[in-house]
């Protein structure tokens, strides 16, 4: 069975950590990922940018693009796509297509800060990479 684990915390707290504290946190994650990879349990790992970098598409009669995250609690997270697009504009366009195809209430496009593809076929570990200008999208 494949599982996803979604991580929650207060963004105000997380973004006010010092660089040293953050590096330490990332190092702990990487150590854990290596352990899970050795056990054959690790899939892709993603660290999202802050919600201030997000754009939300609200679908109704027309689709409206709103700056900021998806903040309602009436809907639940159903799934996500990871997209590789050269610009935010193209990511939004791709999210529009996802919205048109399956009609969810809202789609949040959130750039990815850090991406690790997970264990490769031989069970080895794919090196984590910073994601620069690539924008990947997360669909709510």
């Amino acid at each position, binding site marked *: 069975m494949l599982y996803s684990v979604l991580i929650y915390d207060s963004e105000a707290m997380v973004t006010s950590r010092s660089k040293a504290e953050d590096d330490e946190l990332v190092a702990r994650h990487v150590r854990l990922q290596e352990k899970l990879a050795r056990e054959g349990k690790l899939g892709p790992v993603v660290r999202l940018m802050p919600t201030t970098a997000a754009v939300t598409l609200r679908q109704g009669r027309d689709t409206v693009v709103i700056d900021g995250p998806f903040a309602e609690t009436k809907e639940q997270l159903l799934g996500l796509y990871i997209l590789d697009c050269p610009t935010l504009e193209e990511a939004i366009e791709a999210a529009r297509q996802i919205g048109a195809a399956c009609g969810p209430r809202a789609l949040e496009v959130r750039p990815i800060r850090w991406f690790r593809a997970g264990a490769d076929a031989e069970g080895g570990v794919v090196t984590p990479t910073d994601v620069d*200008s690539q924008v990947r999208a997360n669909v709510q």
Partner: protein
Amino acid sequence: MTDLAWIDAALHAARPQAIGALLRYFRDLDIAEEAFQEASLRALQVWPVKGPPRDPAAWLILVGRNSALDDVRRKARFEAPESDELLASLEAPAVDLAERLDDSHYRDDVLRLLFICCHPELPAIQQIAVALRIVCGLTVREIARSFLVSESAMEQRITRAKARIAAAEVPFETPGAAGRAERLGPVAAMIYLLFNEGYSATGGTQHVRAPLCDEAIRLARLLLRLFPSEPEIMGLTALLLLQHARTPVRLDDEGGIVVLEDQDRALWNRNLMAEGLTLVEKALRLKRPGPYQLQAAIAATHTRAARAEDTDWAEIERLYALLEQLQRSPVVTLNRSVAVSKVSGPEAALAILEPLADPLAGYFHFFGVKGALLMQLGRADEARTAFERAIALANTAAEAAHIRTHLDRLLKDSAQSGEPVPH
């Protein structure tokens, strides 16, 4: 993370919202700060035992409010009966928790708190100091160290500034859209100033002042969370992130300035760069350009160049020309002249500098740029005069040292050839 570290971080993060709300209840900055202080002490006692609350800010607001009300009640027993009225006014509307913790209240509370720090009668440095104390919760000692003054001098400045704020009419009415926009301008300016105060510091003081940049970015992000669709706040946040990304390599090991062209771009902070670039993209989609967005777009153009020689100077010149239209300032023109020198050569840039000689007669960077352009043209004597003027106007030892390296090069070249440096 240990309990105490977590609590400390949670108190820090909740502070602007909690003090903002307490200020709304009590309409008095001192009471609001004391109430928050009291609530924080209680949190340190209670949270390790009972576990952290689901919403730390809401917890702190309620506990702080109750403790301050207790104070008011205690005083009321000894003091004039008009306190009853105050007490009633404090208790009556404060019952509905949901109403009080409403998001829009939160937004206006934090904005009001930031806005009162920007009182126009306060000098810029006092605005920053008060914001650092009240909103960010830095200690007076930390702020004093950042500004390289004694703790008692800083204490005095902050006390005086707070007295001035208390004497002014604090705007408690809920602002409309236009009122919010009016408050956002000075608040954004104060945050930018705070960042620059940290960023322009150089040499041995660098490590002391870097926290100012971090606090400025924290405030900018806070503002952007509250106003997620304001393009200028996106621009401001992006500008700070993109500039801060270069911090690791702005100075060499001796504290000397490393100019953008010579920086090791591989050491720029990629996380901050990526976030800043995304915010610039987001802002530009809205097609409501403003000075922060343009400055961020300029920083982004530098960021996108993998090597200094890949820089799209034509784009930077275009952006500075747009910025000049929105914000007429000789400093902006000076910056455009640098872009012009890269696109059209030093002669064209010098022509742009000419009318700036008067307004920028006391400006270090004007003479630095002028000297560098004259040096490129081989006009060594004039370059030397400009550089000497720049050194006299330098704000920090590192700035003076940086110009001195140009002077040394001029001297060496003329010693070798005995002639002005050929172009």
